[in-house]
């Protein structure tokens, strides 16, 4: 604490280093007294981006929101101090912030509601995770930006405020026309929505910016646009930023310093280069190991997940060589396992898939890479028969499959199994894991009811959950555990092809690493063929041996992983590769 306070007092007299926000020993508890943050210290300096890294549940968002004096429902401030040293103290004579700022800064944690309100959005701004949820769908975007200026009394009159709205829109690279300002949030793309959020945050030229995973859910190329915007805006306005993320690669690209959080504690802090190159805390090392990289130098292992459940069986962790065609495919004596030929799908007049061709051999893993709207989910749903009005053919072992799962035979259905994106919504919360996993067996009707339990337990073992999970419900499980259960559900009927639709995108990197390792292992053990649908190109070398790059319903690039990554033939692939943040 002593270092922080001396630094704070020095900022009052000197200008360098420009401490803007100091968090000291912040403790936050739930309403029933369980401590969530155990005394967190952070310092934000002007013109600098501090990356706050941690997994979901580590308390990073709680810490970020605390900077705005906001605690979500169920949480309560306990002790500690957050002090803001505002910049232009003269401009804001009406502010509570400025009255004290002349002295030693404002203690955010001691402000009343009205003073806090004056601070939020003007001195400390927040950019939320999901722009689609945080923009009010019933208010035009221009008006939402103007609202910030209105409530904080920007400028002298409406003209000045209107001019400011136009200016920030231009600053973030959006059109500033009246037509554009009159649009509704749903008429903008995800990237544009997020840039509206950024414009809103910068409208009052704040001192501190809290960014809460602002690019999660955005495509790689959109993400790099948004990051560029954040970077230029931060340096242009000399703002102190706190960038909350679980993605270390992002931190490496963007941040100056990084702080790592683990279960409510700050375990490591320092300059980005130093922390990433020579991490001191074991947890930081674990996190770094779990980050997939394009070059595929690392192996993603089950141990990448720190909170891994106790192994039910052996306890030994099998490490499988990631990617690189480690799995020996069966000799090609018969027709290929899965062939997709000239697949087309239209929604009304919209072409979603325009003649897609590829094939899959046993034990082979093909990554279908594409951004949102590329048709990759449509493709996987067609293969699984969940969409039944496609044109073209899906052939399994030389036999053409009926379009709809309803018309496919039992065996065909069992041969192709599907794992959904979000494990939070794909498991019925009212059923125990065992019940959910028994459903496919009941449907196939091959096993007598007595033997089903044994098969389900075996599947649970094979995804390293252990049979003790049989009677638990999804609500008790973490995201990673749920996704394992979902994978186990797909495995009970011993499929030939597993269609994985973005199955790691809702998960933390370390959990992602363990799921990837699991899939590789299953591939080796069972000769399972994978259709791994994702927008995350960095996973390529870890999971796939072939890549199919999908852009607007057309395959623009395909081939073995090394070939596509090293010598991409299409501009689109090259652009995707260029936009990848790396450690």
């Amino acid at each position, binding site marked *: 604490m002593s270092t922080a306070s001396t630094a704070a007092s020095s900022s009052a007299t000197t200008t360098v280093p420009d401490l803007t926000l100091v968090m000291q020993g912040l403790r936050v508890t739930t309403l029933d007294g369980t401590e969530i943050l155990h005394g967190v210290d952070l310092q934000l300096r002007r013109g600098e981006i501090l990356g706050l890294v941690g997994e979901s549940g580590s308390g990073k968002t709680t810490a970020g929101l605390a900077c705005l004096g*906001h605690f979500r429902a169920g949480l309560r401030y306990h002790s500690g101090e957050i002090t803001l040293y505002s910049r232009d103290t003269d401009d804001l004579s009406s502010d509570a912030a400025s009255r004290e700022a002349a002295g030693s800064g404002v203690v955010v944690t001691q402000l009343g509601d009205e003073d806090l309100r004056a601070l939020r959005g003007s001195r400390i701004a927040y950019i939320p995770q999901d722009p689609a949820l945080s923009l009010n769908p019933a208010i035009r975007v221009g008006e939402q930006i103007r609202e910030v200026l209105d409530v904080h009394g920007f400028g002298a009159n409406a003209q000045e405020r209107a001019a400011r709205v136009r200016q920030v829109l231009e600053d973030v690279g959006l059109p500033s026309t009246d037509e554009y300002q009159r649009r509704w949030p749903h008429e903008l793309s995800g990237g544009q929505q997020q840039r509206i959020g950024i414009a809103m945050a910068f409208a009052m030229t704040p001192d501190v910016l809290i960014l809460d995973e602002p690019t999660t859910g955005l495509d790689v190329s959109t993400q790099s646009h948004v990051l560029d915007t954040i970077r230029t805006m931060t340096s242009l306005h000399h703002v102190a930023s706190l960038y909350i993320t679980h993605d270390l690669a992002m931190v490496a690209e963007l941040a100056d310093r990084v702080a790592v959080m683990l279960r409510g504690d700050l375990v490591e802090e320092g300059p980005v280069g130093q922390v990433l190159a020579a991490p001191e805390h074991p947890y930081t090392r674990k996190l770094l190991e779990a980050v997939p990289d394009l070059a595929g130098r690392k192996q993603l292992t089950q141990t990448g997940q720190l909170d891994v459940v106790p192994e039910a069986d052996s306890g030994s962790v099998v490490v499988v060589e990631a990617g690189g065609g480690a799995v020996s495919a069966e000799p090609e004596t018969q027709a290929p396992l899965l062939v997709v030929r000239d697949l087309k799908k239209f929604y009304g007049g919209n072409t979603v898939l325009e003649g897609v061709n590829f094939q899959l051999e046993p034990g082979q893993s093909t990554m279908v890479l594409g951004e949102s709207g590329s048709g990759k989910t449509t493709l996987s749903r067609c293969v699984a028969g969940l969409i039944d009005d496609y044109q073209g053919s899906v052939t399994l072992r030389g036999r053409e499959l009926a379009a709809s799962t309803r018309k496919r035979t039992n065996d065909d259905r069992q041969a192709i199994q599907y794992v959904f994106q979000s494990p939070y919504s794909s498991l019925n919360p009212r059923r125990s894991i065992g019940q959910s996993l028994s459903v496919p067996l009941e449907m196939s009707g091959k096993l007598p009811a007595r033997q089903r339990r044994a098969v389900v337990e075996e599947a649970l073992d094979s995804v390293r959950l252990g049979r003790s999970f049989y009677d638990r419900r999804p609500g008790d499980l973490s995201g990673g555990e749920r996704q394992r259960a979902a994978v186990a559900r797909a495995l009970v009927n011993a499929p030939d092809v597993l269609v994985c639709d973005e199955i790691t995108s809702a998960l933390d990197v370390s959990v992602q690493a363990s799921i990837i390792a699991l899939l590789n292992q299953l591939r080796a053990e069972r000769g399972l063929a994978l259709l791994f649908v994702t927008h995350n190109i960095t996973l390529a070398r870890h999971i796939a041996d072939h890549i199919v790059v999908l852009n607007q319903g057309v395959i623009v690039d395909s081939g073995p992983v090394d070939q596509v990554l090293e010598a991409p033939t299409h501009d689109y692939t090259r652009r995707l590769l260029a936009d990848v943040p790396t450690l």
Partner: protein
Amino acid sequence: MIAKLILKRLLVSVFILLAVSVVVFAATLLLPGDPARAILGQQATEERIAALQAELNLDRSPVERYFLWLGGLFVGNFGTSSATGGPVTDLLGERITASLVLMLCAALIAVPVGLAIGIFSALHRGKRADQAVTWGTLTLAALPEFVIGIALVTLFATSVFRILPAVTMSPPGQQVWEIPTQLILPTLTLALVVIPYIIRMMRATMAEVMDSGFVEMARLKGVPERRVILRHAVPHAIGPVAQVVAIQLAWLAGGVVVVEYLFRYPGIGQALIDAVTYRDVQVVQAISIIIAAVYVVVNLLADIVGILANPKLRSAS
């Protein structure tokens, strides 16, 4: 675009009303008894009955009669009452106005009060006030309207206080609302019946909206709480609540039957009960169609409110 969407709903509404008219007409055809005989009484001669049947078009086929009846509806001719022998419009005219006055009063109290209490309850979620509201609404929702009515009568008109009239006086030539005090208890009964549903729905949607990302964002932008609620949250709650309000208002059209009977209020509810007792087929048809029309119109209004409150729907068409 909005106009087109509303026009589409309007056409659907007309179609629904036509379908209802067929059902109502078919149902009344199945009723036993001959209106002509009912009008003329036991002693009527066969010739007079035949003459009246011809006059009332009863000698034609049911399909023809349906279209004649339907055509009459469009020009405000609801047929002839077999009880009074006069046109149905004469019989119902004043009663419809009286019922509408009652429903309107109930709606004007129930909707704003219901919305306000719902919002209040959502903002104080989990606190004592909210729990009180929850218990109150549950209790009210569990009580049938006649129980509420009788309780109110006991409380304000007979046993405890004697400050309000228990039944409605309607001397000939005087409109019911010319003695305003007698409107209070029926209005209050109707309002108390529909209000719990409005409160509960408003509370549920409002609570959901208050938890949404954009409300949190508005607070983090420094928007004053009052403005957060009125500008950011309420507009989102209005759409779903409008549907429930519509169902409740439509229920009023049917609910008046019991309440009017209870308070001897001279509205269409009373008329319907009388008409059923006297087998007055034409009046039953007319009232059924009117109540159906209220349902359709109110739901149409709710749809329009829903469309206006949701920009996505507005620009989707």
